[in-house]
């Protein structure tokens, strides 16, 4: 039993990721005396939820196959954050404004869904086009200036802490991650997602509504991006038109590092969560040690390629071993 568990590639992947995370933690505390302080924890977890939701959304989109990818999440985040701040400046209650922003996120995600599942445009191109479209709209409609003036009463979510852990980590990230894990691992929808990612034709013949499923996941990805936007709004008390720039590639990186197969069918929430922690630890550790941001990019890039190469080597070895 134990041996079979170890042979499970995803479990091995998780162990390997946890080891990598431990290595990051140890290196960070060695290179910076400031890292092993209680004050580091909230600092470390501050950025995790926003990036984390995007990474989880990307994981789901990739899992359902197609091949699926969503390059527009960063732009959706920027645009829905701006919509929230703009509605608030018109006098709408901030929570209702956030809700409206989340609905907008769902609409933006649905645009991707229509382009990809109804028209059959490859996801890479469709979401590249909407990335240009949404990101451009966010910049053009605001003229590039941020919308501020979010009240202090809303700052509890992004700035407040409970047990020295940021509130948005407790209130949004943990429940959503658990919900997505349950969705993937313990529901029929989750099995359908894996089935569609492994063999869409077989899944279709077995009655899985593959297109509808994928459409839903793109819409869900828009919603997750909008929730990320709400967290950012509360953290910075302003919405920047370029808030999500670069996040699309980072979220793809996190999903792939976490063991999600880029062509779908393989991956878990747990792997993605550990991958987020690795990226966040790297960011904070190198920052505290006053090491250039460039090293962080270099390490992330190497990890990304290295993890896929290691996967391939493992697959080859298993094939040879029969």
């Amino acid at each position, binding site marked *: 039993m134990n041996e079979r568990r170890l042979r499970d590639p995803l479990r091995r992947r998780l162990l390997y990721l946890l080891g990598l995370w431990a290595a990051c933690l140890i290196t960070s505390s060695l290179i910076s005396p400031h890292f092993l302080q209680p004050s580091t924890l909230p600092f470390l977890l501050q950025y995790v939820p926003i990036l984390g939701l995007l990474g989880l959304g990307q994981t789901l989109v990739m899992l359902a196959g197609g091949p699926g990818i969503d390059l527009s999440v960063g732009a959706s985040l920027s645009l829905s954050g701006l919509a929230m701040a703009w509605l608030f400046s018109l006098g709408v209650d901030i929570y209702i404004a956030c809700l409206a922003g989340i609905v907008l996120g769902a609409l933006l995600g649905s645009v991707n869904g229509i382009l990809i599942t109804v028209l059959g445009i490859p996801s890479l191109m469709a979401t590249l086009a909407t*990335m240009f479209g949404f990101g451009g709209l966010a910049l053009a409609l605001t003229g590039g200036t941020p919308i501020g003036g979010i009240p202090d009463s809303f700052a509890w979510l992004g700035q407040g802490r409970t047990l020295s852990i940021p509130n948005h980590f407790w209130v949004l990230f943990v429940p959503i991650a658990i919900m997505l894990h349950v969705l993937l691992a313990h529901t029929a929808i989750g099995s359908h997602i894996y089935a569609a990612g492994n063999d869409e034709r077989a899944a279709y013949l077995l009655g899985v509504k593959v297109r509808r499923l994928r459409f839903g996941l793109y819409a869900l990805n828009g919603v997750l991006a909008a929730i990320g936007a709400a967290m950012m709004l509360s953290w910075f008390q302003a919405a920047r038109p370029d808030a999500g720039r670069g996040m699309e590639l980072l979220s793809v990186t996190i999903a792939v590092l976490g063991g999600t197969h*880029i062509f779908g069918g393989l991956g878990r929430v747990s792997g993605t969560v550990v991958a987020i922690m690795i990226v966040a630890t790297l960011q904070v550790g190198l920052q505290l040690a006053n090491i250039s941001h460039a090293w962080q990019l270099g390490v992330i890039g190497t990890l990304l390629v290295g993890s896929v190469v290691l996967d391939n080597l493992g697959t080859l070895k298993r094939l040879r071993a029969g």
Partner: protein
Amino acid sequence: MAPVGAPDGFLAGPRRAVPREVILMVAIIAVGTLFATQSEFFLTERNLVTVLRNSVDLAVICAGMTLIIIMGGIDVSVGGILAVSAIFIGHSYKAGLPDEVVVPIGIGVATMLGALNGVIVAKARVPPIIATLGTMYVFIAVLFLVIGGTWIHGLPDTLSFLIRGEFVGIPAGVFIIGCVYGCCWVLLRWQAWGRHLCAIGCDEGSARLVGINIDRVKIQAYALTGALAGIAAVLYVARLRNVEVNIGTNIALEAIAATVLGGADIRGGTGSLIGALMGVIFIKLVQNGLVLIGVSSLWETVVIGGLLIIVLTLDALETRRSGRPT
């Protein structure tokens, strides 16, 4: 020119009722007319030559991107290659080396980096988007580490004839673009290598079975794209005579957008060099025209994204009507 793959019939490719080049030509004429009626400066020779000078580096990169996409790959690291190559060029100049040494260094470094992408994709079997995404991070890291927040500036202007020069009244950029696209066109249409490229893009398994050395073709194609990014770096340095931190940040996505606007299919097997060039011209005309008619240049990405959605939708509808499986 029809898209590669379509005319012979034996290579799969969408037979478009309206060729993409025609759609792009209509789009270029439409935005051109719009800008010309709004600004009398738009259609002057000086402005158009400026647009040409600004689009040479993107056009050169797009030629490589077209080949890669025809092969069914993608390269998002071209901006990083351009940046690293430009750093080598800048530092070589600072070390007092002459043009004859500096240019080969820049192009050579870029070719090596491209070949590195090719090796990762072909030998380690990493999906191209992941491989080049990873190397892009690494290249950008090299850029930051070497350049460290300052510009390399005050580079000599011995190469600026590549941008500003004229020959029998025609700007030098026309010759550079003509040369690069001519060579790529010959490679693609008249060489077995180009056929292998299309074959890999259409069906990699079959291409392997008929005896094409897939790994070698892939590495060569990525190396060629790297070399073209190196040429773009030389042109960049020749044009601006400095190397700054945010060099090459958007050029990969712009190149992919222009290539797909030009009729390339991201799933491989189909693509058009002329179309890609027209895509570049469209993007650069929009960037230039919006500034001239006083609309914020921030709208340019909206226009590019909108046109991308339109052409992709048209393609999708046509594919569906002709009954090919999606």
